């Protein structure tokens, strides 16, 4: 396993947001985490990426325990977290945002090549390379957030609700990109409200309910699971 999360408990003050979570991601997989608002999806990603410290549990990445490390130390393991709400740097240009993604790298040529690679992936960004991040449209910001994540050469790419608030066409583009990255061998942990889309691209999925894993299975199994269809795919 590339990533093994075991019995993870995370608190916000007195509130226990994660009540013992187990998640596994194998190299090359797309794994999705679905669940209702407030289920603890973002909290899970934040705990893995070191933005939150768990009170209990283990996070093992590539054979090394990383729970409790700070965010910049986790980033150095090439675990890349593209946060909910995109969180691009508003007063930096598109290009500077991409450079921030490559902050921990020192290979100037590799960085330049990857910049071309993400511009090829998202041609829109190339046209807007000198524009300030804060002036981009929501869809463009999401592309930039993903592109910035890719600039770090992720071993594990964690995406938190990349489709949130975007028009259906843009959501298509984003998911096409996710599949393409998957084909290129990048391991992805995808958090989504859009369960149908997420399960259709994922190898495996976990359903999170109020801080616990309620269900797990392959993408197909979950897509056909009656419980999931009722609760998360809006079927009666």
């Amino acid at each position, binding site marked *: 396993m590339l990533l093994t999360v075991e019995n993870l408990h995370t608190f916000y003050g007195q509130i226990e947001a994660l009540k013992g979570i187990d998640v596994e991601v194998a190299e090359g997989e797309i794994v999705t985490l679905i669940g209702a608002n407030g289920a603890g999806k973002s909290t899970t990603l934040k705990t893995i990426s070191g933005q939150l410290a768990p009170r209990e549990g283990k996070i093992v990445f590539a054979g090394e325990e990383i729970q409790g490390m700070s965010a*910049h130390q986790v*980033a150095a393991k090439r675990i*890349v977290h593209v*946060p909910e*709400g995109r969180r*691009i740097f*508003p*007063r930096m240009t598109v290009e500077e945002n991409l450079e*921030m993604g490559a902050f921990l790298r020192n290979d100037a040529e590799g960085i330049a090549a990857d910049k071309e690679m993400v511009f090829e992936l998202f041609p829109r960004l190339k046209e807007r390379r000198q524009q300030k991040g804060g002036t981009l449209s929501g869809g463009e910001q999401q592309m930039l957030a993903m592109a910035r994540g890719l600039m*770090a050469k992720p071993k594990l790419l964690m995406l938190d609700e990349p489709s949130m608030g975007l028009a259906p066409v843009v959501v298509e583009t984003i998911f096409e990109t996710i599949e393409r990255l998957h084909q290129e061998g990048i391991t992805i942990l995808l958090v989504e409200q859009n369960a149908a889309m997420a399960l259709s691209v994922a190898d495996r999925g976990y359903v999170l309910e109020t801080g616990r894993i309620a269900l797990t299975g392959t993408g197909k199994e979950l897509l056909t699971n009656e419980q999931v269809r009722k609760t998360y795919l809006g079927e009666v």
Partner: protein
Amino acid sequence: MHFNIADVPQQLVNGLTLGGMYALIALGYTLVYGILLMINFAHSEMFMAGAYFGLLWLNILSKQSFFTGSAVGLVLLYGVSIVLSAIMTGILGVLIERFAYRPLRHAPRLAPLISAIGVSLFLQNAVLLWVSSRSIPFPVKFPVYQYTLARDGSGSLAFTVLGASDKIVDKLGQGAHAIVQFSTLQIMIIVVTLVLLFVLDTFVSRTKLGKAMRATAQDRDTAGLMGVDINRIIAITFFIGPAMGAVAGIFSGMYYGNIKYNMGFIPGIKSFTAAVLGGIGNLRGAMLGGFVLGMAEALASGFISTAYKDVIAFVILILVLIFRPGGLLGESVVEKV
């Protein structure tokens, strides 16, 4: 009022000198605010501490004949004293952040503010107790000249350099009068300030570390996800601001000829005003605000009354807060959340 248009050039030169000092201090307020959203009330004491550290090094180094024997030695004497004082004050700033602010980082916003006031009082009283309660002369050991643009006796433009005891009429004839004069000190202050501001601006906008500082100011958590060590960035910020403030403190000592334990208070408030005037959190804004405030103050004291010179800063502060709360260079980018 005794407005005289002929005095304007000289007031502007004085304002530029004063403004440079304000700019150097103001950027410390703005950098810290940009990253921690905190007003570092102890920053005015960095200006004061810098002046005292500067004096300490001047006294130590003056004992070496190398530093007093030649013109080059004298330049080095002040240069080295300024650099050492800036480093010591920078370290003081880092220590203050580490022990007085960092433990309160997740406390309510008022807590670090009160801690800052405590640090400020502590530092002032430490100097008062252990150094002196009086003002101490601050030596300028090199000759100061007045570089003078003037009209000579016949009324045509002339340029001359006046030593401390030279009279303009002796050099340029009866009826000669100065249009504008730059003293050696003013030139030094203005040039060094501009160089420092340029270097800092380039550092922040071009280098990797500078970009990390800006990213941290714009979104601290996300900068962390990029691999930026936030505590390191905060420490660097708390080094740069006080180091620059220290340079201003030494300049102030040289310019006014003395230093005192409470010398930071008024320039601190004025520089804070300059930072707000430029748009707090905005580095170029703080620089611009410093110069605008220095000019405004010099013109006001020249044309209204010197008694009003301290009031002008507060009038400007109030006007800015009412009419342009974002400051002159306040953020124009619409941010989408």
